[in-house]
């Protein structure tokens, strides 16, 4: 039970008003008329100093009415706490980590947390503070929350004060060379692994584009050599399992095969020459000559000049702009910064937020109205003692 406006309880001082009225309007005692006083001669008189309140029931109703009004003013409410709700351990898994590609990397963290019986809750959209606050309100007091979020999660607003104990587990999400985007718990270990995994480039070209395909293959290798990043260029082998980060160069006049599109949906990057029939022409390309479309979790890059013989000398520069991370061509994303876990620890030992509350305003108002009607009836009823005495 609590009050939204505790200062409103000062209205309880109004209780003194009816008390004073009932004391001050004390009616004179009506004498009892009897035939003779002879048996009462010498009887002790009652003490006059004793204050006597008249019409006590009416006074009680008036006091109750004022008390109810004071509670309405103070905004009385009760917190709903189910008696059967026990403290629980919950793992809050960020939506960014719940994808298939990231889930493998976060698996170690989840395994260690869920091994103790914690329940995994997938977080919805929103910043980390609002997600934690929302989950904290749903949990009984004393629960613990283990939050698993990417280290680059945007953080905004002030840290909330929570009732549950919260531990933050940050997971770094980095693009590993040769293996596409991967999620690694240990940043140093991920860097070491990236050196040994080459980037993969598949080229699907028909005979008409064999020369262009050879130039493009050489350009990939050149850029990889310059950047000291291993790269392996192969012919498109046909249907393969989707691997995030793989590049597929489509050098035919036909549309990409379903197996290529599936690989793109799985996170691959499809590179299409703007001059080919498959792209539908270069008329709608942006001024820089590179068009970007998304397909599933992958990208489709439509690049002008990829298929022309005059562009052979410029191919390495073009490839260097877009490979291995085509995301740099996308419009500038909001700045993402790494955060330290210490920054994410919610404030503890602060005034806990209120739990789910049930306002008693309507109930109190209904009772007050009932008391008011009862008070009016008692004050004007035909056989009121005061009226009888006055008569």
């Amino acid at each position: 039970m609590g009050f939204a406006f505790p200062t409103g309880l000062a209205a309880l001082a109004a209780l003194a008003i009816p008390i004073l009225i009932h004391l001050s309007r004390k009616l004179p005692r009506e004498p009892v008329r009897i035939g003779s006083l002879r048996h009462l001669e010498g009887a002790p008189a009652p003490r006059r100093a004793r204050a006597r309140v008249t019409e006590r029931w009416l006074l009680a109703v008036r006091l109750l009415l004022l008390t109810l009004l004071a509670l309405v003013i103070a905004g009385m409410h009760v917190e709903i706490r189910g008696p059967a709700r026990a403290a629980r351990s919950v793992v809050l898994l960020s939506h960014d980590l719940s994808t298939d590609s990231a889930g493998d990397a976060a698996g170690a963290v989840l395994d260690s947390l869920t091994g103790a019986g914690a329940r995994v809750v997938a977080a919805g959209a929103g910043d980390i503070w609002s997600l934690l606050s929302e989950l904290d309100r749903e949990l009984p007091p004393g629960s613990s929350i283990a939050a698993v979020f990417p280290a680059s999660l945007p953080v905004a607003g002030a840290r909330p004060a929570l009732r549950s104990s919260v531990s933050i587990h940050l997971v770094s999400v980095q693009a590993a060379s040769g293996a596409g985007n991967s999620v690694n718990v240990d940043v140093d270990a991920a860097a070491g692994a990236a050196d040994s995994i080459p980037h993969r480039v598949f080229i699907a070209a028909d005979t008409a584009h064999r020369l262009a395909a050879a130039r493009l293959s050489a350009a990939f290798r050149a850029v990889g050599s310059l950047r000291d990043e291993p790269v392996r260029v192969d012919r498109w082998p046909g249907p393969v399992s989707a691997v995030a980060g793989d590049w597929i160069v489509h050098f035919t006049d036909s549309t990409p095969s379903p197996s290529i599109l599936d690989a793109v949906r799985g996170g691959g990057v499809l590179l299409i020459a703007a001059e080919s029939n498959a792209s539908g022409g270069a008329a709608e390309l942006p001024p820089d000559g590179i068009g970007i479309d998304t397909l599933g979790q992958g990208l489709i890059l439509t690049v002008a000049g990829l298929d022309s013989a005059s562009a052979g000398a410029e191919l390495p520069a073009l490839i260097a702009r877009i490979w291995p991370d085509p995301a740099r061509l996308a419009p500038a994303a909001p700045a993402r910064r790494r955060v330290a876990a210490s920054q994410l620890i919610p404030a503890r030992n602060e005034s806990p937020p209120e739990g789910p509350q049930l306002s008693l305003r309507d109930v109190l108002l209904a009772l007050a109205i009932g008391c008011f009607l009862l008070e009016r009836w008692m004050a004007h009823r035909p056989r009121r003692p005061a009226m009888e005495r006055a008569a």
Partner: protein
Amino acid sequence: MIRLDPATLTAIGDLEIAARMVVDGFMFGGHPSRMQGAGIEFSQYRNYQPGDDLRRVDWKLFARSDRYFVRESEAETSVTIRIVLDASDSMREEEDGVSKFACARLLAAALAMIAFRQGDAVGLTAVSQGGARAWRADRGRSHLNRLLLALSAIEPGGSWPDWHRLEGPLLAAPAREIVIAITDLNERGNEIRAALEKLSALRHDVRVLHLVGRREMTFDYDPAVTFEELETGRTLDVATGAVRERYLASLSAALRNIDLELGEHRIGCHRIRTDQPLDEALREALSARSRR
């Protein structure tokens, strides 16, 4: 069955109807009078006592037994009844909306109606305002109506007067009467008892119906009460809890004293509570009288 308590009867408003209800209730399962005295029909012999009328001595029995016996017969049923109604201020004492006077008026009307039904002469003397007013004893429906009208018009007030102011109205009848006094016996000295004793000394058959209230007998009042004496207007603040036992003891002693004193003068006294059904009260009172 309707409970004929005074509150119900006074609510009727019509004194004759209320009195008739009381009398009907009284006569239900009634019994003949067993009063004994001078009369025609023989009842029994008893030993002669000095002062007995010599005409009632059975001389033939004296001749046979050489002892004096007096013949007793069923008393004449045609007797004269005088109702003495105390209409002093103290009779205005009320409990539960019923005053002692209203109760006394109903009793007087009921007694007059009983007398009328039995063919007895009935008279009325109302004592109020420091004096008394008498209606002569007579029989008949018209006389009963006159008495009922007079009873309806009487308003209590004043106090019970001294004997010299009552002597004329009370002793107007030359013959012996059955005097039934309906009173609360609240007196400044002993003026009521003195008057009744004088009537008894004059060989009237005197009977007192003493009206008391329920709260008067139990002293069931609020903790702090201001009492006002009706005849004098004097007030007294009383802590009832502190004086209750003393009051009850004083009242009990006073009632016992009244009974003894009236009994010494051959005056029967029957106590009637104002919340008691009047037919039942009358039956008890008159049956107690017949047992004397």
